[in-house]
């Protein structure tokens, strides 16, 4: 079994379609909607967890992509935007599970998503907005 989180961006025309029902019925996956913002005739976003056999989960996401839904796969509820990061390291002393560290040699910040517990304490510590909460920033 595989559980995978994703942020879905729908265009206003796609908002009219029962995509999530189709997803569940046709791909034998269960869907947990963690957050959604859907208004008729406007672009919509949704943060979901899809669970099922790994092949089914893969097909489910391919189906969404085929419809033109834009997908983002965040590491838990925290995203590290490497383009905004200046690798100063202001975040590392805030990160108690040591998901954010500075590489000894390159002096670059490294984000280990496995260790991240999405406590979000690092977010206000970053002067450059490189750490973002998925639910705050994208939904």
């Amino acid at each position: 079994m595989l559980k995978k989180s994703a942020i879905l961006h729908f265009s206003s025309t796609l908002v009219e379609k029962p995509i999530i029902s189709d997803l569940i019925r046709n791909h034998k996956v269960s869907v947990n909607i963690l957050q959604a913002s859907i208004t008729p005739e406007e672009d919509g976003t949704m943060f979901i967890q899809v669970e099922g056999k790994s092949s089914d989960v893969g097909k489910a996401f391919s189906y969404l992509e085929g419809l033109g839904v834009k997908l983002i796969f965040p590491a838990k509820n925290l995203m590290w935007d490497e383009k905004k990061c200046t690798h100063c390291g202001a975040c590392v002393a805030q990160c108690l599970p040591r998901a954010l560290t500075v590489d000894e040699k390159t002096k670059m910040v490294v984000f280990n998503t496995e260790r991240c517990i999405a406590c979000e304490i690092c977010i206000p510590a970053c002067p450059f907005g490189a750490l973002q909460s998925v639910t705050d920033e994208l939904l």
Partner: protein
Amino acid sequence: MTKTYEEINEKIKRGKAVVVTAEEVTGIVKKKGARKAAEEIDVVTTGTFGPMCSSGALLNTGHTKPKMNFKQAWLNKVPTYCGIAAVDLYIGATSIPDDDPANKVFPGKFKYGGGHVIEDLIAGKDISFEATSYGTQCYPRKEIAIKINIKDLRSATLLNPRNAYQNYNVAVNAHAKHPIYTYMGILRPNLGNANYCSAGQLSPLLNDPNYRTIGIGTRIFLGGGTGYVFYPGTQHDPDTERNEKGVPTGGAGTLALVGDMKTMNARFIRGASMTGYGVSLAVGIGVPIPVLDEDVIISCAISDAEIVAPVWDYSQDYPEFKGKPLAYVSYADLKSGKINLRGKEVETASLSSIMMAREIAGTLKKWIKDGKFLLTRPSAPLPRASVT
């Protein structure tokens, strides 16, 4: 053995100059000795990249039609200073929009301010410009609201009153029972973390502790373009205590810097939001040091283990302007990720990016090696320590 600026520049022009970074020079001097290293090496490049609040941009928009004398002006809603001539204005890095909630809901986020406007200008983005005036017979226009772009400005000059601090404090929270939000970042209670902000052995003034080659008129790397030292920075204090090697053990010298924003690259000039504190600007600076003689290279060979910084309590002593440092720690220890304070292992975090400092020193090295960047002899020295 001595070399002159002219001899070094001749070698640069011929593409024959030997240039190394302030990190590389340490090992070379250790291996070959100062005399041999001074013979072989012509220039040492330094670099630093960190938030430097005392920064800003002096802009001239060119005249509007009809003409106008700006009295209040905003760039992307961020207020500027217009108490100068008609279409001159200065935007400080820490300026925030008039309607920013600041710290009303604590800690404030300070998502956008002067530092971000400066970054966006350099990135070539369109910026909203609004201004008002009382109107005069020679400058009748009273209002304007347009989009501006750096390429259309008559001039855009980065004009920073104080940058490149020679050494700086390490900040901790020793007394508050809760995290505190400072310009040195978030400090957790009970010595939860120690934040520092210097590139250490790569930092420009730590490689020239007595300002022998860095002075008024020194040409530098500034924000990805070319800039100059135009004066000692505000708060320049050469008389700060020094160790046996003559290296200051706290904030000492500073540089006032100037450069053409139109030549800069937004990778090296970044708006910074300090939660609970305000907005700042991270500035990328690289200063070349000509190896005039053995003494110059001995200063450049300094390593992180030989530079110490004072640890200050930002929950009480620092804001109340009292007390003394809790301890002195070396940059080698700070950069290792942990220091020992009062018998406790404390995690360290840097606000100054070593990776970017390396990139800047490396870029300047390449410019000089490629013959694109010549060195300048200062037209006057920075004030030096009264007793050295």
